[in-house]
């Protein structure tokens, strides 16, 4: 499903990723760990083709970084969900519209949008806050909205870049539980994190990156 073959990438003469090879299979939950600046976020950027390797190949489903055309990239991204440490919600739209945004921009019909958004908000426990604005919500709730937006389009993989980085331990656990549920339903999850307590509590295969190189590729605990 997602394959990295000998991927190397430099930026301003600094080696970010050094001949990285790994794969993530359908429905897998994988942690990506490593110190800040190790290249975790870069790996997450390579998957939706927001960045391209200098050498080696990234393959996402049937699309290869070596061959994909610029105009095809949006269609790859429609199968990928993203969540970030800073949530990246639109502050001038309410919860419903933030989630619906992901469907509107791909031209989904209005009836389908309403049905899907309400369903995912209810599942995530925010159905009652659909009219609230992001700044009226707690950090944990904002991240839940971001998750709802990421999964409303039923992606095959969810990429999470430090999703618990800005959250208190209780909210962080809640978010991870939601990610576990999403994963059980068949969506693969690749989560970059520093939160070793959570990794210990919810163990999965862990890819450890240091100075752009893979150090470990097995469950950490």
């Amino acid at each position: 499903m997602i394959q990295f073959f000998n991927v190397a990438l430099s930026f301003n003469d600094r080696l970010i990723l050094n001949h990285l090879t790994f794969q993530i299979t359908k429905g897998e939950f994988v942690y990506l760990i490593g110190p800040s600046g190790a290249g975790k976020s870069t790996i997450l950027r390579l998957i939706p083709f927001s960045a391209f390797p200098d050498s080696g190949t990234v393959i996402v489903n049937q699309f290869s970084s070596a061959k994909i055309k610029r105009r095809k990239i949006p269609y790859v991204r429609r199968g990928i969900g993203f969540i970030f440490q800073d949530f990246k919600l639109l502050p001038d739209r309410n919860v419903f519209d933030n989630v619906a945004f992901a469907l509107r921009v791909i031209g989904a019909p209005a009836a389908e949008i309403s049905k899907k958004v309400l369903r995912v908000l209810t599942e995530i426990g925010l159905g009652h806050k659909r009219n609230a604005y992001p700044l009226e919500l707690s950090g944990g709730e904002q991240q839940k909205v971001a998750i709802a937006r990421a999964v409303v389009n039923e992606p095959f993989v969810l990429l999470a870049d430090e999703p618990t980085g800005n959250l208190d331990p209780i909210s962080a656990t809640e978010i991870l539980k939601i990610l576990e549920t999403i994963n059980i339903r068949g969506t693969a999850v690749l989560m970059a994190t520093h939160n070793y307590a959570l990794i210990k509590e919810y163990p999965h295969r862990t890819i450890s990156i240091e100075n752009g190189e893979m150090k470990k590729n097995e469950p950490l605990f």
Partner: protein
Amino acid sequence: MSLYFSLIEGIRGFSKARLASVISISSITLTIFLLGLLVCFNLNINMIIDNIRAKIDLELFINIAATDQEITQLHNQINQEKGVAGTQFVSRDQAAERYKTETGQDIYQILDYNPLPASFIITPQVEYRRSDRIEILKNRLQALPHVDEIIYQRPFLVAIEHYIQLGNIIMFSISAIIVIIAIVLIHNTIRLTIHARRNIIEIMRLVGATERFIRRPFLIEGIIQGLLGSLLASGVLYYLLRAVKIFFYARLQIDYNLYLGLILFGILIGLFSAWLSVRKYLLKIV
């Protein structure tokens, strides 16, 4: 659905970035207003020039030995020539009269006889009142029998054309400079609004919006700015030209298609500037 979404996003973007919108609209208003003035000025100058050109006639002098019958034949031949709108015969006596009127001297007092030949004053058709085409007409007429000489105010016509050409170049250059300045200004303003909305663009990209889709709200915003700017400019221009016509220059001609053209051009400027800005921004990111 997606077009409706783009329309709503475009209107939302337009109303949110009020300062940027005001700057863009002002630039378009000023540009369209100046262009409108230039076009109107050019239109009226051209009309004055056309009136002057309308007075340019050819004078065909008939060989003094030609008989009345030959002159009648020549008259018919001239009238059949392509490019001739009308002819007026000037007999030798009328030529002498004209000489007296123009110089104040009687030809018979200078000479014992009238040396002035009879002539035809030929009015060319409108499309032949150009230095190149009138010369062709002249050469064709010159080839007819019993024609001695044909004269017309060629230096005057050439000078008019030279000044028209010069005027057009100056006008085109000024217009081009105004339009380029406006596009640069609007382009930069829209770049600022794009920068302010980079988050929404980033989210659109991440959830799989196509570039065309991302571009559309900004293009709609550009169209709205262009439309409002040019409507405002056309309104101001309309009242200004009306005032000029009423108070200063009653012969001022106003072509009402001008306003339609200006509005369309304003929309085009807004659209093009927006397209340029978004394209540049999207090319920088993957």
